């Protein structure tokens, strides 16, 4: 596909890191393929490993608008695609006098009265946009089926206006936290990548890139502690987002290195479940580092 500012996986990986997103080879390959083959990219992984960030970085890197559709329980087509501005239509109807009405009814369903929602916006923007469908697992089956239809056609028919289609489809990133399994039909349409928690060195680099004021020593201490936290039997494992939050919190308190007492004071930035905190508290010395 033409129009992409890179011609190989390595180049893409470099420009991602220029935009402070450190992706490994697997993720870079998946993104590269998604853009070159024009297929949506489905990202799964624990919360906080940077799934949403991929789309944001991509929109900067490609110089495109980011159009975000946040899914939630009960979301339906009128919230995702388009809706008529009913109140405005009602006022317009009232303002017409009876003689006009017959001739102006069509105006009521013109673009002036159309409220564009993310999917329609993305279809109209085409390759000037990156569409992020965030946390699709929160929506229900019916919505997934509807989305599948949109993703295969990139066209919709608004009965009153006509067909809207993109000449070139937008780049699409779909994320899921796996609170439920997505349907195979949707998965078949997408490329798939599972984002793991990063290796220690990469995580240190990520913290340094995302929070430049955090010292190298602190970043490493925090990343090591988080890695040990992840090996504990926690209900909710801390993600990269938590690592960055924690490093930020510690740096804000003026810390240059992680110590047990500092960790105890700021534990809430990284362990966010009451039972988990009770589990971690007595082992804090061990988490912070063997020498205590």
């Amino acid at each position, binding site marked *: 596909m033409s129009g992409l500012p890179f011609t190989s996986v390595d180049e893409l990986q470099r420009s991602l890191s220029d935009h402070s997103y450190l992706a490994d080879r697997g993720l870079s*390959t998946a993104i590269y393929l998604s853009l070159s*083959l024009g297929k949506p990219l489905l990202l799964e992984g624990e919360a906080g490993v940077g799934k949403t960030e991929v789309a944001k970085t991509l929109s900067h890197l490609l110089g495109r608008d980011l159009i975000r559709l946040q899914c939630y*329980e009960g979301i339906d087509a009128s919230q995702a695609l388009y809706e008529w501005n009913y109140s405005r239509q009602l006022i317009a109807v009232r303002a017409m006098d009876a003689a006009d*009405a017959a001739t102006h*009814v069509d105006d009521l369903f013109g673009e002036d009265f159309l409220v564009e929602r993310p999917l329609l916006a993305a279809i109209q923007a085409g390759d000037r946009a990156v569409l992020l469908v965030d946390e699709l697992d929160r929506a229900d089956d019916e919505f997934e089926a509807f989305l599948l239809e949109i993703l295969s056609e990139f066209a919709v028919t608004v009965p009153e206006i006509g067909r809207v289609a993109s000449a070139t489809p937008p780049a699409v990133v779909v994320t899921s936290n796996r609170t439920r399994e997505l349907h195979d039909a949707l998965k078949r349409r997408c490329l798939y990548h*599972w984002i793991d928690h990063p290796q220690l060195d990469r995580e240190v680099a990520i913290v340094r890139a995302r929070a430049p004021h955090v010292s190298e020593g602190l970043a490493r201490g925090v990343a090591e502690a988080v890695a040990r936290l992840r090996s504990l*039997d926690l209900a909710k494992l801390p993600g990269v987002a938590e690592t960055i939050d924690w490093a930020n919190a510690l740096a804000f308190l003026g810390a240059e290195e992680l110590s047990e007492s500092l960790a105890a004071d700021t534990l809430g930035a990284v362990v966010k479940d009451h039972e988990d905190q009770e589990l971690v508290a007595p082992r804090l010395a061990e988490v912070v580092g063997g020498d205590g």
Partner: protein
Amino acid sequence: MVDRATRGRTPEGPLPPLIRFGRDLRRRDLSVGTGRILTFVRAVDALGLVDRDALYWAGRATLIARREDIPTFDEAFDAWYRSLRATEDLRVELDLPAPAPERDDADAGSMQDLEVQLARAAAEWHRAEDDEEVAPDEESSIRIVASGAEVLRSKSFSDLSDAERARVAALIRSLRLRVPVERTRRTRPATKGDRFDLRRTLRRSLRTQGEPFERAWRARTARRRPLVLILDISGSMAPYSRALMQFAYAAMAAGRRVETFVFGTRLTRVTRTLRTRDPDRALRDIGRQVEDWEGGTRIGESLRALLDAWSQRAALRGAVVVLCSDGLERGDPELLRAQMARLRRLAHRVIWVNPLKGSPRYEPLARGMAAALPSVDVFLSGHNLESMEELAAALEG
């Protein structure tokens, strides 16, 4: 794209090895269809020169779509790649019938050729796909009061002969199961509802010169709650758990949101295995799958494994949970108490089926059972057909 003339080639040509890889994955029970393989081939082509890493990641992104499948994929990839290296010691080369697969019209023809080739190669192993789906069983309304079954109804599962067992199994499968409904956030148009439907009201008003005479409403929809069965298959429980497996099978047929787990010393999910047409075969398969059939019991640990892996999923939240065990916990009763409390917080209703309760002298004194009871909504016996009917009723009520 890249000049390929100077590179070595696999002796059989570029396409067969890639297709063979898809077939390898399929043989390992991953659902890899022709479409996936086509995407894989296009991906390899889009990457140009490919080394091991590139092939690996191209495959990961295109051929699988589930985290659980990654280890299987890795294994298959290693084996496959080694087989390539045996014939070719440099890089794998691709020389596709089509140039870079873009959506230009000029390429459309050759892309189709590729599809035809793939389809032909895939045809031989495609038929395996047919036996996946189970026809949705119509809800059978036969109650277990059929004549001749009266004696069987009260006989304990542990005393049944083989012939009786088969008979009882069929009767259990015919039980009618109803799971309660829950209201969802989604709404639908309704004549009587609690939410005003501005959209439809306004549409109707256009017929009457913009005067909204007819008002329209929406109501929240309801759906059946998920049913989760957690069955103990340790030694003492074997006859009962076999019977309950039939119950699980009937439950699968009653609705699509059913999850079944079995445990002894550790937890195994058997939902997929139960989804086959033949319950007896399914039970045999489970027997093979589960290594600790009739081993010991670690209820607390098994529950923790279940809750850790599944509590974030829709399957447990708001579900009706049926746990079948004698409550003779070998692990720490405190762990069991905590996990039961966790389960209680997530689920809509927790039903504990304990076949020992069928004995008139039974009292829930076992430490495990005593620890679990505070978190149990309904406590049933489940040792014979009669009590299975009670269980079916408890699900509903």
